[in-house]
């Protein structure tokens, strides 16, 4: 069996990738993918905790977190679509109308 600490370590690694991606990428879809990577890192943490403490809560949290992530994608894509149909772009650099 894989040590829980290795799972949590992989989770931390994925979280860092996601966080860096969120701040460096400009395409809204890729930013959304990075957020998904961060949420999957959370799932790995819950799994690692559940394996370490041998209680079932972590598995339940994981399955609900997957559903939350799916809902987040649905909402996000809908909002991006509204933006795209209006401006023809989803680059976050070009959404600069609301200033001052």
């Amino acid at each position, binding site marked *: 069996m894989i040590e829980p600490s290795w799972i*949590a370590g992989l*989770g931390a690694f994925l*979280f860092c990738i*996601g*966080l860096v991606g*969120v701040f460096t990428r400009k395409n*809204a879809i890729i*930013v959304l993918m990075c*957020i998904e990577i*961060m*949420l999957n*890192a*959370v799932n790995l*943490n*819950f799994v*690692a*905790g559940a394996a*370490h*403490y041998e*209680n079932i*809560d*972590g598995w339940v*949290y994981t399955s*609900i*977190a997957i559903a*939350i992530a799916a*809902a*987040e994608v649905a*909402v*996000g894509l*809908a*909002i*991006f679509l*509204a*933006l795209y149909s*209006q*401006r023809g772009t*989803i680059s*976050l650099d070009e*959404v600069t*109308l*609301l200033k*001052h």
Partner: protein
Amino acid sequence: MNLGTLFSGPDMATILMPEWILLLGIVAMILVPNLGNATFRLPIPGTSIRIPYLIGGKRFSVTGDPRVPAAIAAFTLFASFITALLSQILDSGVGMAEACVTMNGLVQDCTSDGTHILRVDAFSRLMEMIFTGALLLALIANWDRLPATPHHRIPLKPEEDEIKETRRLFRLLNNRRQVDFALLVLMVALGMCTVALSTNLFILFVGLELASMASYVLIAFNKETQAGPEAGVKYFIVGSVASAIGLYGISMLYIWNGDLAIYGSGGLAAKWAAEGPNGLATIGLGMMLVAFGFKVSAVPFHFAAPDAYSGASGPVAGVLATASKAMGFVALMRVLIGITLADDGSDWTILIGAIAAITMTWGNIAALGSRNPKRMLAYSSVAHAGYILAGIAAIGALGPGDGSQLIATAIMFHLAVLVTFKLGAFLVIALLECEGRGYELEHYHGLARRDPLIAISMLIFMLALAGVPPLAGFLSKLMMVSGIISSTVGDVSGSSLSEAMGSLSWVFWLAILIFINSAISLFYYLRICVVMFYDEPDRNLRLSRAPMLRIAIMLCTMGAVVFGFGVLADVLASAAADAATALFS
């Protein structure tokens, strides 16, 4: 929880009555507008028996009326508000006043040992009333911002005139979107009530996400405008990054403790008090503060808030500034006061104090330089978040006790009365938005001549926001500042004044900073009042009729006045005191 426990014992149904009502309202909202005369042919050869199954087909004219969804939602929110109120007014003999729900769906006494995930007490009931009340006002106000017209009044064939045709299409479109708006408002309400009830970090987070995702869509709801989708995208990206970071923090606390319940023997608070935090728990807590700090728009995470408020329609922006902010503070108080207060030497109080100082100052300075009243109100709500954070920092520095309870009472009172005057100010903006304006200070010139009643309401809201007596905003600020000062000055030692000043807690200076910032804020609040009363209007048309919106504004005005002094203010203050006691128990 299995369905058996739900129906065999009435406890579960009674104590969670406001939430069940919201849930039933959501189901009704999905079903009722879709009722129609659809039939289903039995698949037997040679027969043509058709069984009606009612969902779909040609919709009935009664249930298909575009005014039905808002009516259902308003009724649901009102019923939910009233049940929450009655459960506190009536004696606890009804069994709705205080109870806890365990992980497997049993209703227990809160003192009994076990891992509870939901907790019904004076605190959660007061918060439920704040949330449902604010959403109800916003829903009533939106009646005229998103007008619902019965189909037969809209001509079905295209108009030749281009302007008339656009207007006809918008009315048809609005009719179709009533259900979406009302449904999203109910979901926000359900998510917020879940946050108010939960004593398990993960359940709290699920409620937070439900409310936030529905509010992302509400912000981008006017997708035909230029600002709507942009505001939605910005708020969505920043918000979901913040909540991903917060969820990672929660998962770190899970690895630390193996249980996400806040109270109870195996809970986070017990472990925090017994062992103190290690690095994992500290970082996890810090990451959660990022998520909740975004919700209350504290300074490093405030930058999406003004954009979101100015892109959303007036009532939605009002909800974001009041109910959504109150939800963030509920989560913050559950985490900071619930988990870490026993460890009173902790460093987070200094951190929260610093954030509070920066937040209130920065918010006020940014509001001074803003020409768009909606953005100005957004920055002023950042400043108000700073005042409340100062209160939380003071609670952390003082530790549990009478002084902390006084400050917590002030916070609760402030969150409640904020619904009246902050939401009211946004509703006045919504009234100007009905004629396509409201985003420039010039649009408010001479409002008193165009509509004296609305101008006086706006004056009351602005004075209440600035904290001028005898309005509601004054009382809440007074309670906060006097709570901080009386509990810090009490233990001052030293003979001379300079020694006494030196021995004061740093929290005292936070109270002074609240004073200074209130003085600064008076300037930009009064600027709007001055242009309303002394400048010439650039058009002499009357404001839009918008009867429901005006009713909502009048309700807010009455609230801002009656909660400032007198009987109702005492009632609300004692309810807030009960809530503070429940929070610390």
